[in-house]
């Protein structure tokens, strides 16, 4: 699996795993979910409601809401602003998202 983490300049915090659409990927304390996904080579984070197109992280600073995902069961959470926590579940969001479910 791809690992796009840069090794120079910093030492990372504790390593753990997060569950992305049922699959384990590595993450570290202090990493955003968006960064952990890109580090694993995962760019598509949601599908749009109308045209059913894939979207990924775009502005990267919390303004555009393109990286909205279902995180721990809650939809419309920005992956670029949300820190990964041990064992958190992350699902690709399909459409507008609904409380209490991935759809």
């Amino acid at each position, binding site marked *: 699996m*791809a690992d*796009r*983490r*840069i*090794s*120079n*300049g*910093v*030492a*990372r*915090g*504790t390593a753990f795993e997060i569950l992305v659409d049922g699959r384990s990927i590595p993450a*570290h*304390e*202090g*990493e*955003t979910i968006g*960064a952990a996904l*890109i*580090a694993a080579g995962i*760019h*598509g*984070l949601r599908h*749009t*409601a*109308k*045209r059913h*197109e*894939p*979207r*990924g*992280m*775009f*502005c*990267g*600073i*919390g*303004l*555009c*809401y*393109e990286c*909205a995902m279902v995180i721990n069961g809650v939809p*419309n959470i920005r992956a*670029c602003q949300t*820190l990964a926590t041990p064992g958190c579940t992350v699902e690709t969001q399909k459409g507008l998202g609904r409380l209490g479910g991935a759809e």
Partner: protein
Amino acid sequence: MTDPMLVIIGAGPAGMAAAIEAVRAGVRVTVLDENLRPGGQIYRQLDPSFTVTAPGALGRDFQRGQALVAEYASLASRMEHLGDSLVWGLFPEREVAFLRGGESQVIRYDQLIIALGAYDRPIPFPGWTLPGVLTAGGAQRLVKTQRVLPGERILLVGTGPLQLALANQIIHAGGKVVGIVEAAGVLGNWFQLACGAVGQWTLVSDALHYAWGITKARVPLLRSHVIVEARGNSKVEEAVIARVDEEWRVVPGTARTIAVDALCVGYGFVPSVELTRLAGCEHQYRSELGGWIPVRDEHMGTTVSGVYAAGDCAGVAGSQVALEEGRIAGIAAACALGRLSGEEAARRAAPSHHRLRSLARLRRVLDAISVPRRGLYELATDDTVVCRCEEITLGEIRAAIAGGANDLNAIKRMTRSGMGTCQGRYCGPALQEIVARERNALPQEVVPLNPRPPIRPVSIAALAGQGELE
């Protein structure tokens, strides 16, 4: 009776500098900042679980920012810094509404300094919504503070010095930059640039440092070229680039394709004016400063009494200008609150005014080179999504204009463009230009989207739990 209060929104270079000056003058200050830690975008701090082992690897801005953040942090006991505080509205009676810890709160101010900063200028082109296409600013945050590369074959497209800075950071991190595509024909402007830069050794030295890093790594730098299309199935796989003329219009027959897995787009920045507009400040359109900006006096005061704007949100000019504008605004607010005499305020602000005059020379030259030209707004086709949130295409927008919609608010009512979660931030700036072109008008003649609270998505539950501070 409590002391009069200065509220500062934003803790980037402008907001931090304003707070430092105001606290020094004895003003009671509260800073509201969206991020967990002060620094803004340019001086963003790493999460404390990261240990910085080589500050040099994080770039020159990071090291410069450390000093300012340390100075700001040293005042912590004499002011109130509220991180994780997302301002969503301004209301009469001098009230600021913000979201913190899942709850909406209100704070009252006597003087207000808005230092919201800027965000990457969105330019719609076919394929710009594909995963793997991200803004240069977003890519920089990923590389600098998360220490993750956006891809394995990275192409940088856009204009201006940030491209060179980002390329260097990626190269130093061991990443592969397959090319830098620069829209401007910069070559002929080096002499002009050198003349403008006299006395600005820091900026000149940065530019030389970046240029050398790129040359050493043998990264191709293509001038007078733009991205015309991103292609791929579920993510970006190919970038189509082409040569452009002086108006940045594509020269037919010059297109070529490059295999990429990440595309970083950086066409400069747009000032975040939603709060100065909500506050009722008068604005003017200045394309060389990023678009709509608040009208200000020499003390950074807007046309609304007691409301100041400092830094990139009042005209994109970079961190060094933001810092000096922040100082001036902080001193002016302290003077307005009676903590400094007019004479003392003028004395304290003088060095900043001097620095700004010197920086302005270089700025004018850089602006002239990098201001987006018309050709960029001709890249989108009728099938290109312009409003990313509501998925509205250029074709739908043109149909609305043909149907009589002649400003951004009418287009919003007819198409929903600008109604989504980004609140028009990523369609508005391009629509300003596109509507002007379709109507044969100037961009400043097109009425922009009216910001309405909440200017950021706020859950109904948060509003229901609304509490008041103090």
